[in-house]
Structures are given as structure tokens and as C-alpha cells.
């Protein structure tokens, strides 16, 4: 939920201050010009040869200083405005992360206290409760991992377990695991195509990438989510087309959605869960692997598509990929 804080009053105060000091300067200049005219008039009338040349230089220098001060103020204003915006995003992030962490915790606590409160809970009910608790713990774990990963990417201190793998096999394994984790039936999670290329991947991080994409598809779906993944090899890259049939985004948002803390706000997006970190992390993970990611609006049907390219080993950017394999070199 967006947090409604307004910086309007600070902006108005800033603009009024600027208007006030510019008005003062304007008055001074008017007075200067007026005095100058009077002196010129006296000079002409009485021919006493008052030297006003220096005053013109002072006026020019003064105007230049005003221009510099105004430019400086404008830069400060932009900087402050940026920080106001960041603080607002950060406040929203704190509210979201609180919700994201406390809700699964609340579920687990509720089920544990439920088990403790009644003696007549049947075996199937008990199994149902433990499955639900387990799902919530997985969710909590993913959220914590995402936050930690963002921190690692930002500090540049990521220690990765990159390995040379068969991309097709590794990716299919990740997708099958996630199919089970999110209980997605075959017709709601279609995987097609193949890749026989080798790639340098940190499999756990790539799993986190697709967890975030699937989680978004579920959050922003109309009813049951519908996800399609197409895998193929191009000349230099392993290409993954990830598409859902959810609410989608506006064309103007296609680049913004990868920004840190960016959230979709407008109707009809349900806009509830989430921290604004998911796609920021996705982009960082793809970039880390030397790949590229683009969000696209797929055809006429609603939804969102991600075009992901991961470099093929031995073909693409070999030096960087070797560095991933041997970080100490």
C-alpha cells in the first residue's frame, strides 16, 4: 500500500524563499539602475564627469554571481528532491518488508498455537497444518535470501558458487522444483524448447531469480496464474522467454520495474505483497551472469514477458565467465 506523505509544503517553502531573495535582488537592481540614471542625468546636466564604468562591471559580476547562486540552489533543490523521494520509497519499503516478514511468521505462530490449544485435531488436519507451516517457512526463507542477496550485490561482496553446467538441464531442474514449490499444475506452468549449451551459473541465485518472477506472476495474476517459459539457444546466448497472462504493466513502466523499491501502484493492480526488490534483484542476477534482461509487452493478450539472455560458455565473453569460475584469478 502506498504511503501518502507529501513534500509539497517543503517545495513551496523552497520556492517562496527563492522568490523572496530574487525579489530583493530585483529591487536592488532597480534601485541601482535608478541611481545610475539619476547620476547620468546629473552628469549630463552639470558636466561634472562622474565615472560610472566601474559600476557597470559590478552589475555584470553581480548578475553572474546571481546566475551561479541560482544554479547552485537548483542543484541543491534537485538533490533534496531526490532524497525526499528516496526516503519515501524507503519508508514504503520498511512497511512492505514488515508485512512480508511478519505475515508468514503470524501464520506459523497461529498454527503452532492451534496445535497446542486443541486435543482433537485429526491426522489429516495435522498434516495440513504442517504443510502450510512449511510453505510459510519457505516463503520467509526466500524473502530473507532476497534481502541478503540485494545487500550482497550492493556491497559487491558476493561470494558465489558458480559452476560450469548444462544450462538446459540446470534450468529445467530449477523450474521443476519451483513447479512443486508453488504447486503449479502442468497446464498453468508450461515449459517448452531446450538448450544443450554450457553456461556458468550460480544455480541457487538463478533459482532465486525465477522464484521472484513466478512470485510476481502469482501476485499480479487474474485468478489462477498462467506461466509459459520458452528455452532456446541463439548464436551467443541461451535465450529464455518468460511470459505470464497477468495484469501486465504500462509501456512507460517497462524499464522502471527494475529499479530498486519500484512498485506498481495503479488500479487494477492488486498491489499488496512485495518489497520492490524482486525485479531489481532479478536484473542484478542476470547482469552478474553476464546476461541481459528486458521486459516486454507480449502481443495483444495481457501479461508481461521477460526476455532473458545468458551467455553460452566458450562462445560469449569468455574472460568474464572464467573469472566467475575462478574468482581469485
Amino acid at each position, binding site marked *: *500500500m502506498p504511503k501518502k506523505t507529501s513534500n509539497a509544503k517543503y517545495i513551496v517553502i523552497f520556492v517562496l524563499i527563492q522568490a523572496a531573495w530574487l525579489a530583493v535582488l530585483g529591487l536592488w537592481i532597480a534601485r541601482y539602475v535608478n541611481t545610475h540614471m539619476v547620476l547620468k542625468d546629473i552628469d549630463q546636466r552639470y558636466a561634472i564627469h562622474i565615472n560610472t564604468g566601474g559600476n557597470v562591471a559590478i552589475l555584470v559580476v553581480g548578475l553572474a554571481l546571481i546566475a551561479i547562486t541560482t544554479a547552485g540552489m537548483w542543484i541543491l533543490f534537485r538533490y533534496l528532491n531526490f532524497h525526499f523521494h528516496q526516503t519515501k520509497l524507503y519508508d514504503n519499503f520498511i*512497511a512492505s518488508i*514488515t*508485512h512480508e*516478514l*511478519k*505475515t*508468514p*511468521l*503470524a*501464520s*506459523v*505462530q*497461529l*498454527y503452532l*498455537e*492451534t496445535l497446542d*490449544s*486443541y486435543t482433537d485435531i485429526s491426522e489429516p*488436519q495435522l498434516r495440513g*497444518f504442517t504443510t*502450510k507451516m512449511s*510453505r*510459510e517457512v519457505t516463503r520467509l526463507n526466500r524473502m530473507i535470501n532476497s534481502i541478503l542477496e540485494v545487500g550482497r550485490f550492493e556491497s559487491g561482496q558476493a561470494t558465489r558458487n558458480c559452476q560450469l553446467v548444462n544450462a538446459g538441464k540446470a534450468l529445467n531442474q530449477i523450474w521443476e522444483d519451483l513447479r512443486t514449490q508453488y504447486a503449479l499444475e502442468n497446464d498453468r506452468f508450461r515449459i517448452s524448447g531446450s538448450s544443450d549449451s554450457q553456461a556458468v551459473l550460480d544455480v541457487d541465485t538463478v533459482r532465486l531469480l525465477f522464484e521472484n518472477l513466478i512470485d510476481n506472476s502469482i501476485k499480479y495474476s487474474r485468478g489462477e496464474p498462467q506461466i509459459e517459459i520458452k528455452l532456446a539457444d541463439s548464436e551467443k546466448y541461451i535465450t529464455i522467454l518468460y511470459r505470464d497472462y497477468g495484469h501486465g504493466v504500462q509501456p512507460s513502466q517497462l524499464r522502471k520495474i527494475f529499479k530498486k523499491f519500484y512498485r506498481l501502484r495503479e*488500479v*487494477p493492480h*492488486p*498491489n*499488496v*505483497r512485495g518489497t520492490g526488490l524482486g525485479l531489481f534483484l532479478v536484473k542484478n542476477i542476470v547482469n552478474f551472469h553476464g546476461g541481459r534482461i528486458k521486459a516486454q509487452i507480449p502481443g495483444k493478450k495481457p501479461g508481461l514477458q521477460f526476455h532473458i539472455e545468458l551467455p553460452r560458455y566458450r562462445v560469449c565473453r569468455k574472460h568474464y565467465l572464467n573469472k566467475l569460475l575462478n574468482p581469485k584469478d
Partner: protein
Amino acid sequence: MQSQSDMPPQILLVEDEKILAEGIIFNLEKNGYAVDHVPDGQTALNTVFTRKYDLVLLDIMLPYVDGFEVARRIRETSPLMPILMLTARTAVKDRVKGLEIGADDYLTKPFHLKELLARIKVMLRRSEWYRSSEPHSERYRFGDNEINFSDFTCRAGNGRFKLTQKEALLMKYLIAKRGQIVSRQELLENVWNISAEIETRTVDIFIARLRKYFEPDPKNPIYIKSVRSAGYLFSDSSH
């Protein structure tokens, strides 16, 4: 716990987190309540007036329409509906906002099961008290004033206005105890339900507001009198 007839109390649960909602439903049903569950704010608004609910258990972060807006819209039509807000937000301003909008109580996640059940029980009891307590008739007159306790509309002299839910509860409590001294603590416990987070000064503010509405001279009250270091005393000259 049974409300009016033999029907179990009907609770509308508005919670988008499916797993949490299932856990709450299990427990409420186990404790004799009938529960309808809706997963978003819009459906909640479409559902809440379709049947008579005894209580709404409302999450704040909801899809489409948030919990604050749902509470506000419920209050517009149904001033008496008990609303218990349930949320992960812990900021004081969120709690204050919820209570100001008209939520009766507030529980933060993660919560204890026993506390949830206890609060629901207290809220239903209070709601039942409001319905059954004196004055039994919907309209109550004293002096030039008239209060309609079903929709909180009032007439004082020639002026017409509407009381808030808390003001109406407070007025009803004072009238029910007319002729008796009611302490601030008693009012906090019975009208506000929670005493810890609300200072006794809150009671004074509400009393001052009620005097402004109903007293010919609020500085020299004749209906709602102060009793030094004891509390307040409602006396009705027309009864």
C-alpha cells in the same frame, strides 16, 4: 457464545493471505463462530452489507481497496459494526489512523491465538451490551436534545448533527448509568475497551465534546457533570 437468537455470531474475515486466513477460520469455527472469508477489500465491500454480520475482522494491506478505506466505508453505513483490525504494521500512526477511522480494536501480526479470541469475545459482548442496554428505545430525549442511537443522529435545540461511534457509545454508557458516578477508568474499560494505550485525558476530551453538543452552557454543565477526583455523573432533568 451466542448473539441474539440461537444463531452463532457471524464474522466476516477480510484477509488476503490464504494460509493465515485458513488458520483463523479453523479457530473461529472451532470456537462456535460462523465465518465468511473474502480475500480483498473490494469483495469485502460487496459482501459486508449482503447479510448481517456481528463483527468484521479486517486486514489493512488488502488488494484493490485497503483496510482503512473498507473500515471508513463500513462506518458510513453501519456505525455500530464492530471492526477488529489485523495487521503487520506496528507504527503508532497506523494504529491511531485505524482507530480514528472507526476500528474498535487493533491487533498486530504475529498475534497470540488466545488474544485474538479474547478480543473478539469482548467486542461481541460490548456490541450486545450496546443493543440491549438502556435506553432501550432508539431515540432518547433530555432537555432540548434528542439522540437516535441507531444511526447516531442528534438534535440539540435547532441544530442537527451526527455523533461518532465512540461519542455515541460514551453517551449511551453515561445514560445507562445515569444518577451514578462513573470513573474515567470505568469509561476507558467499557467504552474504549483498551485502557493501556489511551490516556484518561482522552475521556475528558470526549466529554468536553459531548458537553459542547448537548449542554446549553458547556462551562456550567447541567447534564454531564464532573465529580471532583471521581469521574462524571449524567443526570437527566427530563427523567
